[in-house]
């Protein structure tokens, strides 16, 4: 049922939506209108959730060469379009699109007309009315969500997150359950069908790699008053995802010190499926961290996650949580190469690292302006305040900065502290010589550094160094303002930068060799093969995390045999809860066996269904580029 536009259609549409007389916002609105008009209505018997994407591709709003001309001199984030934010699903589903019609800019109003016209073609009276005036029941709310979310993708906005589904859907869910319109089993079946619809078109929604589509869904957490907000729908969603065993939507769970074991156990059953989720976020750490960044307490309590793990706020934020990254591993390495002979104390070297982070922050900050963002008239409609185009900003306009190679940075410093400053194993020049020659003729030193030197996650002496590095990284961005008046949010995530930064690293003081991958996000180095889960969760639950709260989880690989029976599975749930109680911020758990991954490389045809967590999302293993596959295989070497 998919089709490509004919050449004539393509030409005709291009001429219309690239009309130089139209503003970019008007062009974007017209593009969405024509897109939806050209979409085919597909109804399948028995299906209650509408909409299939039938158009494989559609023209852009720029005439040839125009985009490059317009963007010249700007900082273009990724595709230059609005992405990776969370819509005000709660408000739109409750009030309907017409409540926003008169508030919205002209271009946005036209997108409302276009979306309603498209929805009306399905001839579902409940859907049409829900979109206009707000939903009255669960089925209507799901149908309306589907059309809105589908239209967002069609509008060229991407990484369209799902937000706090069990919160904004709960009133409809409860209404239908209480009124007896649906039984509990029917509600589950309906939720499963709805979840499946996220997988209909997702192959067309590629990010950096297939599977990186941003369809993250948040469950649990607290309400605006801070009270526990887990409800029956939370559990229904977990069961639906468990039964579906599909890659989308990607399940996240907000937890806190009072979250009951029962919920962790249910989530662990989902982890057992090997889909790489749920991912856990700790309200006790995240909410105070967000408030410290300037978010209101009420807004902070409503946080969800972006495509991967960055903490974002529904409806009120045009944050760009992944706008740039600092290679912490390289920062430390450059300082060692430059300043090791000049520093008589380890503290002196740490001060130099701090200076390096500040100067890298200066350079990165300067490079991020002026920002280019294409108008997004339909996304605007879905914000809490639709009065100005969302691309121009919202209540919050903060930028997230990843810190990559955190463990590799800490391990380099730990090795230098021990062998140069404490044990005085060799003169600094010798050390630098060994690094410059990639440990040629120094295999014993290399071996010592790789296996004996202190490693974050395994050895406690690295932890004070980790704390100082986190503080220095946080300080290097504190007090800065971006051109939109927002703040910078440093974080422990890496996104795909662990690959980009990793390949540039040479021989390092922790024994890392050129070309070797580094760990993603906030995880122990891949060189450590003997770090136990208890050591890892203890070491990585640092009080300083609330200062680097952009997001970025500790990833633990557990061999799939630990999920063998209910008793063992419960112990995995206890491990997760322990990390939260210790004050960890974010955790992502994988159930995978190294043997399976190796076999999948040799026999991809036998492992089409194999799903793994990549850096912040789940993807099909065999569809990933080899470099991503290799990194995942290496990190499973320290699974128990």
């Amino acid at each position, binding site marked *: 049922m998919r089709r490509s536009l004919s050449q004539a259609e393509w030409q005709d549409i291009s001429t219309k939506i690239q009309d130089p007389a139209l503003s970019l916002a008007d062009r974007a609105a017209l593009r969405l209108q024509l897109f939806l008009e050209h979409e085919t209505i597909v109804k399948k018997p028995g299906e209650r959730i509408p909409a299939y994407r039938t158009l494989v591709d559609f023209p852009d709003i720029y005439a040839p060469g125009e985009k490059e001309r317009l963007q010249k001199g700007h900082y273009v984030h990724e595709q230059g379009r609005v992405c990776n934010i969370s819509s005000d699903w709660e408000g739109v589903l409750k009030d309907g699109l017409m409540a926003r019609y008169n508030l919205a800019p002209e271009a946005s109003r036209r997108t409302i007309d276009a979306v309603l016209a498209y929805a009306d073609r399905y001839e579902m009276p409940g859907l049409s009315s829900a979109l206009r005036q707000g939903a009255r029941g669960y089925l209507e709310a799901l149908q309306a969500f589907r059309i809105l979310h589908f239209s967002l993708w069609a509008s060229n906005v991407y990484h369209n997150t799902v937000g706090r589904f069990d919160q904004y859907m709960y009133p409809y869910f409860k209404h239908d359950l209480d009124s007896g319109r649906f039984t509990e089993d029917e509600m589950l079946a309906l939720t499963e069908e709805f979840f499946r619809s996220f997988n209909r078109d997702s192959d067309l929604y590629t990010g950096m790699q297939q599977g990186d589509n941003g369809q993250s869904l948040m469950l649990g957490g607290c309400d605006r008053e801070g009270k526990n907000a887990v409800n029956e729908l939370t559990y229904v969603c977990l069961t639906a995802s468990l039964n579906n065993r599909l890659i989308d939507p990607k399940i996240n769970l907000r937890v806190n010190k009072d979250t009951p074991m029962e919920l962790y156990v249910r989530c662990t059953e989902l982890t057992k499926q090997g889909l790489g989720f749920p991912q856990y976020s700790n309200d006790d750490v995240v909410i105070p961290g967000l408030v410290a960044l300037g978010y209101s307490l009420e807004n902070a309590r409503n946080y969800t996650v972006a495509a991967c793990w960055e903490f974002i706020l529904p409806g009120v934020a045009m944050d760009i949580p992944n706008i740039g990254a600092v290679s912490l591993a390289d920062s430390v390495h450059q300082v060692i190469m430059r300043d090791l002979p000049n520093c008589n104390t380890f503290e002196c070297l740490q001060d130099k690292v701090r200076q390096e982070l500040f100067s890298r922050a200066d350079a990165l900050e300067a490079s991020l302006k002026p920002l280019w963002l294409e108008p997004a008239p339909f996304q605007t409609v879905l914000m809490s305040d639709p009065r100005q185009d969302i691309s121009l900003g919202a209540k919050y306009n903060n930028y997230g900065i990843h810190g990559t190679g955190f463990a590799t940075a800490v391990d380099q410093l730990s090795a230098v502290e021990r062998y140069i400053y404490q044990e005085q194993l060799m003169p600094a020049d010798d050390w630098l010589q060994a690094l410059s020659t990639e440990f040629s003729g120094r*295999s*014993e030193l*290399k*071996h*010592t550094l*790789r296996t004996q030197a202190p490693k974050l996650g395994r050895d*406690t002496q690295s932890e004070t160094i980790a704390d100082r590095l986190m503080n220095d990284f946080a300080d290097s961005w504190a007090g800065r303002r971006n051109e939109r008046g927002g703040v910078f949010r440093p974080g422990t995530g890496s996104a795909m930068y662990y690959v980009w930064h990793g390949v540039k690293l040479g021989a390092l003081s922790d024994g890392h060799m050129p070309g070797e991958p580094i760990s993603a996000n906030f995880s122990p180095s891949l060189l450590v093969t003997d770090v*136990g*889960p*208890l*050591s890892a*969760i*203890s070491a990585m639950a640092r009080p300083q995390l609330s200062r680097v709260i952009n997001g970025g989880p500790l990833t633990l690989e557990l061999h799939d045999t*630990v999920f*063998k*029976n209910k*008793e*063992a599975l419960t*112990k*995995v749930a*206890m*491990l997760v809860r*322990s990390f939260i*109680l*210790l004050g960890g911020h974010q955790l992502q758990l994988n159930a995978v066996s190294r043997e399976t991954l190796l076999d999948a490389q040799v026999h991809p045809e036998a492992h089409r269904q194999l799903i793994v967590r990549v850096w912040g999302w789940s993807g099909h293993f065999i569809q990933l580029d080899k470099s991503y596959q290799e990194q995942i295989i290496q990190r499973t070497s320290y699974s*128990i």
Partner: protein
Amino acid sequence: MSTTKGLVFDIEEFAVFDGPGIRSVVFLKGCPLRCAWCHNPEGLEHRIQLVKTLSLCAGCGLCDAAFRSSADCTNCGHYVSACPTGALRIAGTWMSAQEVAVRIQRHETLLRLNHGGITFSGGEPLMQADFVLAVRALLPCLHAAIETSGYAPSPLFQKVVAAMDLVIMDIKIVDPLLHVKYTGVQNDVILKNLTLLKSMNKPMRIRVPLIPTVNDTPENMTALAALLKDAKNLEKVELMRYNQAAGAKYAGLGMLYQVDFPEKQPPRLLTEIFKEVGILCDVL
């Protein structure tokens, strides 16, 4: 006592099949049995050994001398760091009781919070009984379990059991002749210690590795159930499925894995025999 040294080949965090709760397991090197199906050959010899990851080995021969030696590999560090492909590692570290206790204590809060503790395993931990007792003495408040074949002099067995909170004992084969054939030792001392254990009012679990056609038989299970049915301190019997990857580690130690039973055949799960006499029975 804290200076007593033990030969340890691994300390595993987050063990989930070795007693209640989340546990740390200390694996002690050396075992008097030679079970045909042993999946942990690193635990057999009471000496430091070199282990080769064959997939990484370039066959340069630099390390051959170390593999030929039957004594403690005293020069292992040299071979490991000299190996150009990083294919070598050492199995076995002499650690003081104090060192082991410190490693475990680091997570004492987590272990207790999660109703777990420490488990001594191996190899056969009773071969290093003094060391086990020394570590135990340094961790008096932690739940302690031991996984043992029960093959040890009875006074020693009794002394160590008395210091534990839980005993997890293997009874592999009840028939004496078959036991010798498949484990290399007589089982009279094991069965004697089982009788002793039953009389000690100490929580116990019995484990049986299920080896297809060897001991997954009605005869063996019925005989075992008969031995256990009057044990008031028995929590449960755990039947452990044969690990088909059992042979995986042998070549890396320069050893050969050869068995005369059908490895691929699924073992019989005769849990009913135990349930009939009122014994709880799980399959792992």
